[in-house]
């Protein structure tokens, strides 16, 4: 069965520090993977998708099929990155992880 796991509920880092939000998935085929972000009092929005191999707001995510992981990384966190982050797998519907709250301290 499809499943997405985000092991960290809360991640606190200082401004300028590197950050990595972990995501592991269960899926036997070629996955469609996404990272969504929800800033305070805003709607959930797409941050990036694995197929694009893009960097958005300094964030990147690499798909590792061997480890079934799709971790989100940023080398230097900013205070405005503080938000809730959800990893999602698409197979007929979106399977979301439980989310990681990122808190970037000044």
């Amino acid at each position, binding site marked *: 069965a499809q499943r997405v796991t985000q092991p960290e509920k809360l991640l606190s880092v200082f401004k300028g520090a590197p950050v990595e939000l972990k995501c592991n998935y269960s899926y036997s085929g070629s996955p*469609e993977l*996404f990272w*969504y972000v929800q800033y305070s009092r805003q*709607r*959930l*929005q*797409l941050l990036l*998708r694995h*197929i*694009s191999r893009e960097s958005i707001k300094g964030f990147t995510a690499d798909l590792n099929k061997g480890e079934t992981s799709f971790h989100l990384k940023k080398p230097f966190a900013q205070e405005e990155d503080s938000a809730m982050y*959800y990893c999602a797998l*698409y197979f*007929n*519907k*979106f*399977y*979301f*992880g*439980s*989310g990681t709250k990122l808190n970037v301290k000044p």
Partner: protein
Amino acid sequence: GAGVSQSPSNKVTEKGKDVELRCDPISGHTALYWYRQSLGQGLEFLIYFQGNSAPDKSGLPSDRFSAERTGGSVSTLTIQRTQQEDSAVYLCASRIGGANTEAFFGQGTRLTVV
């Protein structure tokens, strides 16, 4: 054009009453999804529509929950005889379809059952 629109933004209802939540997807988006977000929880899948059909309604918590979509556009999620555990933010999303396309979310309806 406009994004996904949900109404009402907030709804306070008494236990036992019925409520209707509305979702206006982005024009042309064939797929529509309903999720529920409870405090401290992730996004819980409820149901999805492809056109007016619901191939997967496996996430509806009980038979008090139902949803429909008409004209391949607007969707309504109905909760009958609301209970306090139904209190949550109900999110709607739409998607144009095709590989690796994203879902666009509405701002949600915050339902409080008192």
